[in-house]
C-alpha cells in the first residue's frame, strides 16, 4: 500500500480512476467494453505521439515540431505512392518510407539542437513554422482521398467488436496493438537498457553525462532517430485508421501541446525523472478519456471547452497537492527518527 502511495503516478492513477468512476455513475455505458474499445481507438494516435515527445523530454529538451514531422512523413509517403500509382505496396513499405522521411527531419532537429547548440524549444518552433509553410508552398495542400490499399486494410482491421447497452457497435482496431507494442518496447529500452539510462543521464545533466564517458552527441543522435521512427509510425497510423483522417499537410499541427501535457501530467508528483512510459500512458488516457466522454455524460457542446479546462486544472492542482502533502509527510517521518 505504502509503495503504491509512494509511486509517483499515484495521483494520476487516482485521478483517472475517479474520473472513470464519476463518469460511470452518470452514464454506466461508459464502463462497458464498447466504450473501452472506443477509448482505445481514440487514444491510439495521441499515445504514439506522446511517446515521441516523451523521449525528447527525457533528454531534457522540448520539441514543438514532432506532430508536423509525423504528419509530413506520412503525407509525403502517401503523396508519392498515390501520385505514382503504387497503390498496392505492402504495409511495411509505407511505414518504412514514412519513417525515413520523419527520421531525416528529426535529424535536422538534432543538428540544430546538438551540433549548433540551439535552445530546443525555439529551434523546433522555427522548424514547425518553417516546415508547415514549406510543405504547403512547395509540395501541395490538398487531401489525398484514396490511400494505398494496405493502409486502408490496416486501418480497418479490427480485433474485437462489442456492443453498448443500446446495441450500438464499437470496434477495437488492430492498430492499438502497434501502440501497445511501442509502449512495451520503449519501456524496456528506457528502464532496462544501458541506452535508456544514458538518455535519462543526459536529461539529468549533460555535462555530467559527458564526464561519465557517455558520448552525448551519439546518444542524442540515436534518440532523435527513435523519435523520428515514432513520428513516422504515428503519422501512418493516424492516416490509415479507418480512412478517417485523410492525409493533409497541416494535419495534427497544434497537437504538440496536448502531447506535452500528457507527458508532464504523467511525470507524476514526486517523479524526478523527466518522463516515464507508464506515466505518459496514464496522462494520455486521462486527457482522452475526458474529451472522449463529455458528450456521453451529457455535457452540452457549448460547455465542453469549459469543462475540459476545469478538469485539467483540477487534475494539475490535485497533483501539486499530493506533492506538497508528501513533502510534509517526509518531514514528519524524519523528525521521528
Amino acid at each position, binding site marked *: 500500500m505504502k509503495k503504491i502511495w509512494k509511486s509517483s503516478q499515484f495521483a494520476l492513477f487516482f485521478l483517472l480512476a475517479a474520473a472513470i468512476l464519476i463518469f460511470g455513475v452518470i452514464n454506466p455505458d461508459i464502463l462497458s467494453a464498447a466504450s473501452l474499445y472506443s477509448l482505445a481507438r481514440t487514444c491510439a494516435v495521441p499515445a504514439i505521439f506522446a511517446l515521441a515527445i516523451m523521449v525528447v523530454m527525457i533528454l531534457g529538451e522540448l520539441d514543438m515540431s514532432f506532430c508536423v514531422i509525423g504528419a509530413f512523413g506520412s503525407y509525403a509517403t502517401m503523396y508519392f505512392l498515390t501520385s505514382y500509382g503504387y497503390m498496392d505496396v505492402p504495409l511495411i513499405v509505407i511505414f518504412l518510407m514514412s519513417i525515413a522521411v520523419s527520421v531525416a527531419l528529426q535529424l535536422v532537429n538534432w543538428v540544430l539542437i546538438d551540433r549548433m547548440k540551439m535552445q530546443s524549444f525555439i529551434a523546433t518552433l522555427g522548424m514547425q513554422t518553417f516546415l508547415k509553410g514549406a510543405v504547403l508552398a512547395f509540395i501541395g*495542400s490538398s487531401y489525398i482521398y484514396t490511400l494505398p490499399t494496405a493502409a486502408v486494410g490496416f486501418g480497418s482491421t479490427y480485433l474485437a467488436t462489442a456492443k453498448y447497452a443500446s446495441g*450500438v457497435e464499437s470496434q477495437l482496431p488492430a492498430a492499438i496493438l502497434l501502440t501497445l507494442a511501442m509502449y512495451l518496447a520503449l519501456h524496456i529500452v528506457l528502464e532496462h537498457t544501458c541506452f535508456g539510462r544514458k538518455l535519462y543521464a543526459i536529461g539529468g545533466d549533460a555535462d555530467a553525462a559527458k564526464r561519465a564517458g557517455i558520448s552525448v552527441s551519439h546518444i542524442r543522435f540515436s534518440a532523435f532517430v527513435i523519435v523520428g521512427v515514432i513520428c513516422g509510425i504515428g503519422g501512418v497510423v493516424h492516416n490509415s485508421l479507418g480512412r478517417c483522417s485523410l492525409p493533409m499537410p497541416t*494535419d495534427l499541427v497544434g497537437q504538440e501541446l496536448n502531447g506535452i501535457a500528457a507527458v508532464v501530467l504523467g511525470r507524476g508528483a514526486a517523479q524526478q525523472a523527466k518522463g516515464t512510459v507508464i506515466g505518459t500512458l496514464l496522462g494520455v488516457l486521462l486527457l482522452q478519456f475526458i474529451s472522449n466522454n463529455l458528450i456521453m455524460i451529457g455535457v452540452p457542446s457549448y460547455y465542453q471547452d469549459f469543462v475540459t479546462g476545469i478538469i485539467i486544472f483540477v487534475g494539475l492542482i490535485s497533483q501539486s497537492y499530493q506533492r506538497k502533502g508528501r513533502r510534509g509527510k517526509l518531514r514528519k517521518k524524519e523528525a521521528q527518527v
Partner: protein
Amino acid sequence: EGYTIANTPKCIGISWWDRMQVGNERFTEATGNEVYQSGPTGDADVAVQISSIEDAIASGVDAITVIPSDPSAVETTLAKALDNDIVVISHEAEGLENTDYDLEAFVNEEYGAHMMDLLAEQMGSEGGYVIMMGTLTASSHQQWTEGAIKRQEEMYPDMYQVCDPVEGSSQEASYNAAKEVIAAYPEIGGFIGCDTNNPPGIAMAVEEAGKSGEIAVTGTCLVSQAKDYLNSGTIKTFTFWDPADAGEAMCALAVKVLDGETIEDGINLGVDGYEACTVKDNIIYGEAWVDVTTDNMGDYDF
C-alpha cells in the same frame, strides 16, 4: 492590361478552397485578368484573414472577393476597401454591409432547410437528429443550422433534436463526436453535417457502429470525400455547391462592376448555376446547390 483581383477565403490549404482556386484560374485563363488567393493557412482564423485583406488593399488591387469566416468581423476592413475605390464582392456573407454585392450560391436559411428536407426524406420524417457544425463559431453554419431547425419545426413535427449542435472541426473530430453521440443517444436517426469534413466522419462512425442504413447521414460534402460512403450506401445523398463556380462567378461579377455594367435581376454571370440570378438589394442569389447521389457523382470529380 487587366484587373487584379484578390481572393481572400476563410482559409487556404484545404480541398474546398483549393477548388475555388481552380475557378480563379479558369477565370484568369478565360479573361486575362489576374486573380490571386491569400488567407490563413490551416486554421480559419479571421484575424489572419483581415490581415490578408489589409495587405490586398495596400497593394492596390482592383477588386477583392471575400468569403469571411465571420462577416461582422471584416466589416470595418472592407469599409476601408470601399473607401479606396476597390470593388468588394462577398460570398457566404448575407447581411454584410460593406460590400458592393454579396453573391450567394443560395439563400442560407433555404440551404439549411434544404439539408433538412434531404434528411427528413431519408428518415421518413420522424426520429431524432443532430446537427454537426465545423466550428460552433462559424457564422454560415450557424445560419444553416437555424434554417434547418426552423424547417423541421414547421414541416416535420415528428422529428426532434436529440442534443445541441455538436462540433467537428476535422474529419477525425467529426468521427469522434459522432461516435459519442451514437453511443449516448442510441435513438438517433440522422445527422446533418455542415462542414465538408462532417459527413465522411459521421458516416464512418455510423458504419463502425453497425448502423449503416439505419442512421441517415447528409449535409455538405465533396464527392472525393464522400465517395466511399456513397458507394457503401451510408450516405445516400448530400448537397454542396461548387466553390470553383462560386469563385469564378465572383470574379466575373467583380469585373462587371468594375466595367460599370448595370447589375439587375436575371443577370447572367456565365457560370453554371449563376446564369439567371435573383438580385435583391445588393445580394445576388444563384441556384447553385447540387444534390449528389450515386447517379451523378461521376460528374464532380473533386
